[in-house]
C-alpha cells in the first residue's frame, strides 16, 4: 500500500511538472501553429535562473525560506522575459512562414542548452532547496517527499489561474477565439499577434516555474534536462488535444502515473517506452487527440 501511495504521489508530481511545460506548449501550438522546440530551453533557463539566485548570487535570495521564494520568482521572471524575447526577435519576423518558425525554435533549442553548459559546465549542479521542502511527510503509511506536493500545488494554481484567465478576461477570450479560428478573429478586426506575445509569456512563465520546481524534484539542474522533458511534454500536448489546457492537465496526470507505475512494476525504462508508444498509438487511432481538437 505504501509503495502504491508513493508511486501515485511521484507520478502526480511528475505529471505536475509535465503540465507546467505542456500547458504553454499547447496554447502556443493551438494559437500559432508553432511547435515550440525552444520550450525545453525556457524550462532550463528558469531552472538555472533559480539555481543561480538560490546559490547566493542574488542579494536577498537564498536556499531557505523567503529567500528561496524570491529565487523561484527570479527564475520565473527570467524565463518569462526569455520567452517574450524569443517571440519578438525569433518567431515574429517569420510570421508568414510557419515552417520556418518551427525551424528557428529548433535552432534556439540547440543553442540555449549549449550556452548554459558553456557557462556553468555540462555536469549536473546540485540544486539548493529549503530544509522544509527536502524532507518527507507521512501519507497513508508512506513517506512521501514534500517537493512532490509543492509541484502538485504549483500545477493546480497554474491550472486555476489559466482557467480564470482564459474564461474570465478579455485577453483570454481573444486567445480562446484565436485557438478556435484565427482567421475569423482577425477578420473581426482584432490583432491576434498581440495575443502571440502574451501566450509566449504565459507559456514561458509556466515552463520556467516548472524548471525552478523541477530542480527540487530532481535535486539537480543540468543543461539537457529541459530537452529531455520536452519530448514527454509533446506526448502530453498531443494526448490532451492541442490547444486545450484542461486536456493537457488530464493528459499529464495520466502520462505521469503510467510512466511511474510501468517503470516500477515492469523493467526500468519500459515506462518511458510505454509513454512514447502511447503517443504513436493515440495519434494513429485518434489523430485529433483525446479532446477532439484538430491535431
Amino acid at each position, binding site marked *: 500500500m505504501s509503495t502504491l501511495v508513493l508511486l501515485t504521489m511521484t507520478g502526480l508530481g511528475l505529471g505536475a511538472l509535465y503540465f507546467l511545460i505542456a500547458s504553454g506548449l499547447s496554447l502556443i*501550438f493551438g494559437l500559432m*501553429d508553432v*511547435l515550440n*522546440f525552444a520550450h525545453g530551453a525556457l524550462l532550463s533557463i528558469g531552472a538555472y535562473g533559480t539555481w543561480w539566485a538560490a546559490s547566493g548570487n542574488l542579494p536577498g535570495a537564498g536556499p531557505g525560506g523567503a529567500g528561496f521564494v524570491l529565487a523561484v520568482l527570479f527564475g520565473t521572471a527570467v524565463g518569462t522575459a526569455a520567452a517574450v524575447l524569443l517571440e519578438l526577435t*525569433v518567431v515574429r*519576423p*517569420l510570421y508568414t*512562414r510557419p*515552417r*520556418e518558425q*518551427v*525551424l*528557428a525554435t*529548433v*535552432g*534556439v*533549442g*540547440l*543553442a*540555449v*542548452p*549549449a*550556452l548554459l*553548459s*558553456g*557557462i556553468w559546465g555540462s555536469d549536473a549542479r546540485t540544486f539548493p532547496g529549503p530544509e522544509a521542502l527536502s524532507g518527507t511527510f507521512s501519507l497513508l503509511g508512506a513517506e512521501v517527499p514534500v517537493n512532490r506536493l509543492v509541484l502538485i500545488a504549483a500545477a493546480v494554481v497554474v491550472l486555476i489561474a489559466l482557467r480564470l484567465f482564459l474564461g474570465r478576461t478579455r485577453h483570454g477570450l481573444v486567445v480562446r477565439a484565436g485557438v478556435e479560428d484565427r482567421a475569423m478573429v482577425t477578420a473581426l478586426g482584432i490583432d491576434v499577434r498581440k495575443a502571440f506575445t502574451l501566450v509566449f509569456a504565459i507559456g514561458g512563465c509556466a515552463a520556467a516555474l516548472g524548471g525552478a520546481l523541477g530542480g527540487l524534484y530532481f535535486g539537480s539542474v543540468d543543461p539537457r534536462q529541459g*530537452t529531455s522533458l520536452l*519530448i514527454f511534454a*509533446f*506526448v502530453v500536448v*498531443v494526448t490532451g488535444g492541442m490547444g486545450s489546457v484542461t486536456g493537457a492537465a488530464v493528459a499529464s496526470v495520466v502520462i505521469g502515473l503510467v510512466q511511474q507505475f510501468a517503470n516500477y512494476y515492469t*523493467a*526500468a*525504462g519500459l515506462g*518511458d*517506452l510505454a509513454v*512514447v*508508444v502511447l*503517443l*504513436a498509438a493515440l*495519434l*494513429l487511432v485518434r*489523430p485529433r487527440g483525446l479532446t477532439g481538437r484538430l*491535431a
Partner: protein
Amino acid sequence: MSTVTGTPDRTSGTPAAPSDAPVRANTARLLRWWPAVVLVLLIVAPYSALPLPGLLDGPLGSPGSLQLLATCLLFGALATGYDLLLGRTGLLSFGHALYFAAGSYATNTIMLEAGLPFAVSAPVGVCFGIALALVLGSVSLRVTGIGFSMVTLAFAQAGSILVSRNPGGFTGGEEGRAAPAELLPSGLVGIEHTANLYWVALGYLVLTLAVVHWAVRSPTGRVWEGIKENERRVEVLGLKPYGFKLSAFVLAGALAALGGLVHLLLTGGSTPQTTTSDFTLSLLVMVVLGGSGTRWGPMVGGILYTWADHRLGDLAGSGAVADLPAVLRVPLSQPLFLLGVVFVAVVHLLPGGLARLPSRIRSVLRATSEGAPAQKEDRHS
C-alpha cells in the same frame, strides 16, 4: 542563357568581342563539368600532403584530416538523403536517426552475436533498416502534418530508449559497442587504412547523390514534388499520395541505413548518440543551412556543419580563444551554440539556405549593373 544575355553588354568594340561568345559558350560547357573535377580532386586527396592551415589540423593526406573529411562526406550524404523527405516530398520527419542507427546497430549486433563476417552482416543490417522504415513508415504516414512529425519522433525516441536500456546486452547501453575488428575487412581497419575509409565515405556520398538525383527526376519524383506543393491536388488527379510518400520514406530510410554502415566502419562501433532526437535535429539543421530541396544544398550544409562542429571544438581548446574575456570565450567554446545561432540567422536572413546564395549575389549584381546602362540610355534619348 548566359551567352544570350551576356553579348549585348559588350558594346565597347574591341577586336576580341566577336570571338567572345563562343569562348563563353565553351567555358559554360566546361563549367557544367565542375562536379566531375571536384570528384577527381576528392578521389586523389589522400595522396596529397597539401597543408590547409585553419581548415584542417594536419596535411590533407594525414589520417586525422582524412577521418574528418570522411565524416564530413558521410554527413553530407546523410543530409542529402534526409532532404528526400524534407525538401522533395515535404515530410518533416523527426525520426530519421532511427534508420541510421538501425543500420549501424543491426550490422554490429549480427557480427558480435552471430560471429558472421561483415560482408554477410552488412546486407542483413541494411535490410533490417529498410524493413524498419517500411513498417514504421507505413504506420506513421497514416497521419499527416505535424502529427506525422510527432509519430516519427515517438518511434525514434522509443528506439533511443531501447538502445540506452541495453536489452539482453545487445546494444551496450550508454557506451555503445565496438565492432569486432577481426570480422571487418582488413583493409578497413586501423589508422593506416584511413584512406580506404575515406573512399568508402566518398563512394557513399556519390551513390546517395546519384540515387536522389535519379529518384527526383523519375515519374515518382515528380509526384513527390506535387505532394510537397499541394497534396490535395495530387489526390484530385487520381493519385494516392500515401504510396508515394511511403516510397520516399523507405528510400530515405534505406540510404540512412547504408549511412549507418559507413558510420560503423568509420568510427569502429555503434554509439547511442546516433539514436537521439538531437541527431535528427542536427540533420534538419544541415539541410536547412545548405538549402532544402536543392541538388547540392543539403550536401554542402552537411559538410559545413560537420566540419564546423569539429573545428570549432578544436578552436575552443586553442590558446587564441582561451585568452579572450569570458563574455566572448564562453559562446565561442560551444560549437552547438554558434551553429544554433548561425542556423537561426540563416532561417531569418537567407530563406533557401546557402544554395540560394549565388543566385542572390547574381541578382544583386545584375540589379546594380542593369541600373547603370539604363541611366546611360536615358541620357542618349
